[in-house]
């Protein structure tokens, strides 16, 4: 009720252009009937007032929500501007970045590593001490060194690939340039005669890296190496995955080459077996490939033969049908042959000589085409076949069949082929009488 009162007072003394204008209009125009419409009015008022309140609430919420966003916007702006102003201090931030960027190239880093290793390994010391140290790092690994063909100059994944492909041992040496005696492994292990002999005997691949290089550190982390430097040996297991078979890390106090040798010797047998399995697999693959190709070839041949057979059978069927039709035609044609005319005036008398030497003399109506003679000859050639059938059935010419006579008729002297379509009476060589020779067409 309070809301309605509020509304009534506000409407009575205001002409605000607020929403709910139609209620105001109804107030002024229908003043007299206002009491009667009190209920309607009330409901209108409620609607109006609630919409107004809603509007105010909406505004307040809008401002309340906007405020923190605006504050946040400006705070972040100021922060970002400050960061922009701090640009000179980016030198500090990128101080290490440039240096690390350089390390992404593994090859350059490897060359640098070899240089430092050559420098670090003490040739004087190793040459002077005893007979074991007859090699220097330079004479072994760099350039045309004895083991330079064993040094693998690729990335670690490439090394693993090569090892898996060729079934070889991989010796990993990861140098640590920060140690006090950094060349210890080089002088005491890598440059000893036993080590060189082992490498040559078991055809190991040797991979060098640096613990301050990204690649080296990743390898060290993946092997969970706790102290540097690291010397490891990788071999393959039965499923051709690389496994670590020997590891040496941290400061070296004594080194027994026999341990590594035993490890390598033991694993070498497995490795040879693996190589054989790999070769077998390869061989089997080739054999299988050959078998497949042979099978395909014979299959193709069979299919070809089958195709030919089917074609032949089809041809036979077609031939059979043709023969049947021919027989039908012959029967029909014989039935249409007119009987030999008795009189000699309206007929011609021809002597037909067959190829086998037999001779038939017969009269033909002169008004008929020479085709009649052809039909007669055809019938007499196939007489035996035709006689074997009863002639009771109603004879019709077969559909889709055009008979080709397998012979031609020709006059004897001068030899002239007779055209089946001309009438007998128009052919002087046989009318009123003549000789006809039957010539088979091959």
């Amino acid at each position, binding site marked *: 009720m309070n809301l309605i009162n509020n509304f009534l007072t506000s409407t009575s003394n205001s002409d605000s252009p607020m929403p709910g204008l139609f209620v105001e209009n109804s107030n002024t125009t229908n003043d007299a009937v206002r009491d009667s419409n009190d209920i309607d009015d009330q409901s209108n008022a409620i609607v109006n007032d609630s919409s107004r309140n809603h509007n105010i609430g909406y505004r307040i919420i809008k401002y309340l929500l906007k405020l923190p966003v605006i504050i946040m916007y400006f705070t972040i702006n100021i922060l970002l501007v400050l960061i922009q102003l701090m640009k000179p201090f980016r030198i500090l931030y990128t101080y290490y970045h440039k240096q690390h960027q350089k390390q992404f190239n593994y090859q350059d880093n490897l060359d640098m590593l070899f240089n430092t290793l050559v420098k670090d390994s003490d040739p004087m010391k190793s040459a002077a001490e005893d007979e074991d140290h007859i090699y220097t790092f330079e004479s072994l690994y760099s350039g045309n060194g004895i083991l330079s063909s064993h040094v693998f100059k690729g990335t670690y994944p490439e090394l693993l690939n090569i090892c898996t492909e060729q079934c070889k041992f991989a010796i990993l040496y990861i140098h640590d340039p920060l140690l006090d005696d950094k060349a210890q492994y080089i002088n005491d292990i890598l440059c000893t005669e036993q080590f060189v002999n082992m490498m040559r005997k078991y055809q190991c691949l040797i991979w060098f890296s640096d613990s301050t290089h990204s690649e080296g550190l990743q390898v060290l982390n*993946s092997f969970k190496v706790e102290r540097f430097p690291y010397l490891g040996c990788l071999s393959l297991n039965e499923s051709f995955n690389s496994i670590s078979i020997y590891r040496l890390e941290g400061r070296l106090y004594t080194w027994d080459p026999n341990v590594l040798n035993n490890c390598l010797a033991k694993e070498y047998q497995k490795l040879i077996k693996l190589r054989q399995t790999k070769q077998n697999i390869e061989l089997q693959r080739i054999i299988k490939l050959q078998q497949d190709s042979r099978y395909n070839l014979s299959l193709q041949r069979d299919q070809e033969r089958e195709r030919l057979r089917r074609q032949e059978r089809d041809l036979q069927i077609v031939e059979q049908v043709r023969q049947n039709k021919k027989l039908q035609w012959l029967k029909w044609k014989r039935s249409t042959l007119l009987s030999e005319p008795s009189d000699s005036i309206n007929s011609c008398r021809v002597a037909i000589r067959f190829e086998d030497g037999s001779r038939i003399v017969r009269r033909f109506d002169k008004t008929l085409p020479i085709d009649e003679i052809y039909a007669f000859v055809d019938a007499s050639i196939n007489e035996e076949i035709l006689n074997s059938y009863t002639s009771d059935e109603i004879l019709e010419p077969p559909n889709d069949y055009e008979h080709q006579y397998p012979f031609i008729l020709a006059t004897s002297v001068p030899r002239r082929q007779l055209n089946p379509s001309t009438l007998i009476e128009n052919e002087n060589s046989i009318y009123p009488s003549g000789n006809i020779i039957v010539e088979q067409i091959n």
Partner: protein
Amino acid sequence: MSTEVPAGFNKYPATQLCFVATIVVPLLANALSYKYLFMVRNDPFIIEYNQYWRFVTFQFGALNESDVVLLALIWYNFRQIERLMGSYKYLSVISLCWMYTTLILSGSAVILNVVFPWSVWQNFPSGSLPLVLTLFHFYKQYTPQIYEFEFVFPLPWQLQPPTDSDITGSQYQSLSGKKTFKWKLTDQFYIEFLIVLLVLSQGFAGIVCGFISWIIGVLLDGGLLPGMKVWRLPLFLFSSDNIQTHNVNDIRNQLQNSTEGTADANENLDDVPPRSLGRQFIDTFRG
């Protein structure tokens, strides 16, 4: 390929020492009410009482628990330096860095306060912040970065605040062509973040002393401050340890190699992976 340094302190005695000391010393000091030993203020302590010994002690104990936590985490992460240098060299470097930071920080503070008598340098950072910042250079310098990633922000202050009609696809496409703010982080962002937190949490003194300490680290590594190659802690401190580690190291290597050799042979015999106790327990009920 992993980016993780092996966890634990087993092989890193120097890290262990620093980590434990960072936590235990403030705790003990707090419990025994000796916290004042690690506090340096120029005004009463140095000027009035001439307690110069405070310069020596202040790096041994942090005064704030948040500093303790941050320092402990940073020391733990610095085991990578110990891994690179070896424990003996690492301890030597720590001692060297401690001497340089103590000398240079306290010396410059004293000189500054003598030159400008209104005590411009009043506060000192608490805990081993200068030492950690010096070592931070070694960490960053010798730890290669394994991966990096980038945050790309559009620059909001270059834009007009968009009105309702402006929010269309084409508008935003044209905006995206504008200059952006890139923030590149590497895999070391965690320790960088810890260092920034530590420095900022100690206020202006932390920033200034941190910066000076970092410069000391750079100079030490560059050879401008002598001692990196020469200074080593006297060996007799470690002689007994050394023999122990020697033996342990050798035996461990041998054991590892012998077990690794046999591990493969046994692999075929038991293909079933060993069950944990909990698993066994559950399996009895599964039937």
